[in-house]
């Protein structure tokens, strides 16, 4: 084996001197210009990381360290130093990585994470949904809701409709509760919390005042969200993707998070569009099953979306969070036709 020149750093201090390395018969020998000789069996030495453009250093049993001058020096290959470096030098692998990386990221965040999240939610005990729902309700109530201004007669009327629906669906009226609130923040809207609390705003009731059957369709849609555990799934999904992001990209700094942040926002959107469709189906199916019309839901959508659209200019339609409202109305109409 040829001679390798380099520096020997003394153990635990800054002193260094030029040495030459010889290896033979499982023994390494370091020789100084003035003839000083150091011997060490190859089994007792520790090798440094092998990385492109840097010599692999050798730490001797006494703590002194030999660093060859030749930056391509490699004593031998173990897993860390050998396999990984060979991969990094493999041109085809490096080039195909440019395609493989985005592909794997897509698979992980759009296929693996959503599925894991969905199946994990079914394993959660009911208590979690209850606590989550109650706590969220507490916060939403404080921030965005005010006491209802609907008159008692109107409330009673809707409550009767609500109790009838629950009875027909054979759902517990202890779990499912309906609440009326005035809210400038939500406008004409209804939403469901995971523990069965359903909130309807005064504005929505007023808007659908002449169409109680449309309001029923909206309530069924919200029950659909609860029955399919949608809020819990969104939460689980965001937990899973946040943790996955942290694990994988904790080290890759800045850029990866930026690109993936956009991706996860789109993903969330896609996920919630699927959920809307599922809740729609629940409402449509049950409307038909219990002798109402699926078209009632179309009526509700038309009435709710009518004002919203007139408020917006053409440009922002593309950015609207519910761009598929036309499609949803069409589905409701067709649902009726197909039965």
């Amino acid at each position, binding site marked *: 084996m040829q001679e390798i020149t380099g*520096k020997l*750093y*003394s*153990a*635990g*201090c*800054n*002193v*260094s001197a030029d040495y030459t390395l010889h290896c033979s018969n499982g023994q390494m020998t370091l020789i100084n210009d003035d003839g000083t000789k150091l011997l060490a069996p190859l089994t007792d030495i520790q090798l*440094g*990381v092998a*990385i*492109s*453009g*840097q010599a692999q*250093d050798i730490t001797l049993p006494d*703590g*002194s*360290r030999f*660093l060859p001058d030749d930056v391509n020096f490699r004593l031998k290959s173990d897993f*860390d130093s050998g396999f*990984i470096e060979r*991969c*990094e*030098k493999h041109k085809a*692998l*490096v080039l195909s*990585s*440019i395609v*493989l*990386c985005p592909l*794997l*990221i897509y698979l*992980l965040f759009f296929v693996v994470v959503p599925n894991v999240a969905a199946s994990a939610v079914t394993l959660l005990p009911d208590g*979690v949904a209850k*606590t*989550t729902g109650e*706590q*969220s309700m*507490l*916060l939403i109530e404080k921030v965005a809701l005010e006491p209802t201004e609907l008159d008692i007669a109107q409330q009673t009327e809707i409550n009767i409709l609500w109790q009838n629906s629950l009875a027909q669906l054979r759902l517990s009226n202890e779990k499912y509760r309906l609440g009326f609130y005035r809210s400038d923040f939500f406008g004409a809207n209804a939403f469901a919390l995971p523990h069965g609390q359903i909130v309807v705003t005064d504005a929505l009731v007023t808007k659908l005042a002449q169409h109680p059957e449309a309001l029923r369709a909206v309530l069924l849609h919200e029950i659909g969200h609860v029955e399919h555990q949608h809020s819990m799934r969104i*939460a689980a999904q*965001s*937990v899973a993707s*946040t*943790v*996955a992001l*942290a*694990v*994988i990209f*904790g*080290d*890759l700094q800045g*850029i*990866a998070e930026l*690109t993936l942040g956009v991706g996860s926002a789109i993903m969330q959107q896609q996920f919630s569009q699927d959920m809307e469709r599922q809740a729609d189906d629940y409402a449509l199916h049950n409307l038909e099953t219990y002798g109402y019309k699926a078209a009632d839901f179309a009526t509700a959508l038309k009435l709710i979306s009518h004002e919203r659209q007139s408020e917006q*200019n053409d*440009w*922002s339609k593309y*950015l609207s969070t519910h761009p598929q409202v036309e499609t949803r109305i069409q589905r409701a109409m067709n649902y009726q036709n197909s039965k």
Partner: protein
Amino acid sequence: MDLESREVVENRASQTQKHEVQFTGDTRSYFSIWIVNILFTIATLGIYSAWATVRNKQYFFGHTLINGHRFDYLATPLQILKGRLLAIACFALYVVSSTYFSVIALLLIVVWCIALPWIINQGLRFNLRMTRYRNVQFSFKGRYKDAFVNFVLLPVLSIFTLYLLLPWVLKRIDSYIHNNIHYGDKKLNTQLSTREYYSIAFACFCMSIGIGIVVAILAMVTGASFSESPQIITGIVLLMQLSLVMIVTSAYQAMVRNHVYNNSHIEGVAEFESGLEPVDYVILNVTNVLAIVFTLGLAFPWAKVRKAKMLAAATVVHLHPEAEQVVNVQQANQSSFAEEAANVFDVDISLT
């Protein structure tokens, strides 16, 4: 000062050797390391990220040379992995509880404030101990109490002074970090001036105002055509804010770096000098971000290598002959948990 002692001083000064910091890495080799790091990290669901960290750091440390001697990063992948798993567990706990139980999340913020100084100290301690030049390791000896005052108490107080105290707080933070760094048995001494921090802050403030005025004029000249679509205006405002933040922070970092380096020395071992031009550094960072965005991230290695080269080229170290006598004082290895916790929770405490 009498004649004799002046002679001694001059004599000493002439004995110090001036060394420019060299960076020998190149985009090509770093690109393959970077892309393989990403590929393996995803394929192993994050486990490889510990190996990736080590290779990443060693690449930049080992390619940074002073006087022909390189730096080394000493942490082992398993150390990093252990710390990372613990940090992830804490992070998952935080995310789960804050998603499902909003009230507990508030409590965790308090816990976080109490833990933060410890985490910062541990992170600095771990990173510096894992840094070696020649055969001597660095270390960090900051105490919890000081970290709490500098990183939690004073920043919160400065809010109540309408951020007027902020430059002074930033000076204290930099002073705390640097004055607790040791190289072997020698301590780093950094004398920072409050006045300098205020003039840097003032320069940054003027810069923001100046850019704001230029943008406003441009908007007035070209703005008419956008006035009908609020979305475009919102987008432009957001973009402006981002670039303003990037420009001003780059300029700030360059000026502070120069001030810190030019006023730091290790007694009897080394003096430091940094001549980073704020304008150059701003241009570098802006073009880096543009390149990364327009190549969908592929230019990242190029940007990182380019930055390392500029920072190295702007740095000079004067080494004393006695530098050879520094003795290593590090022994036991601690876990990297705190550093990982800091990473995952995204608390940036970079030293440059």
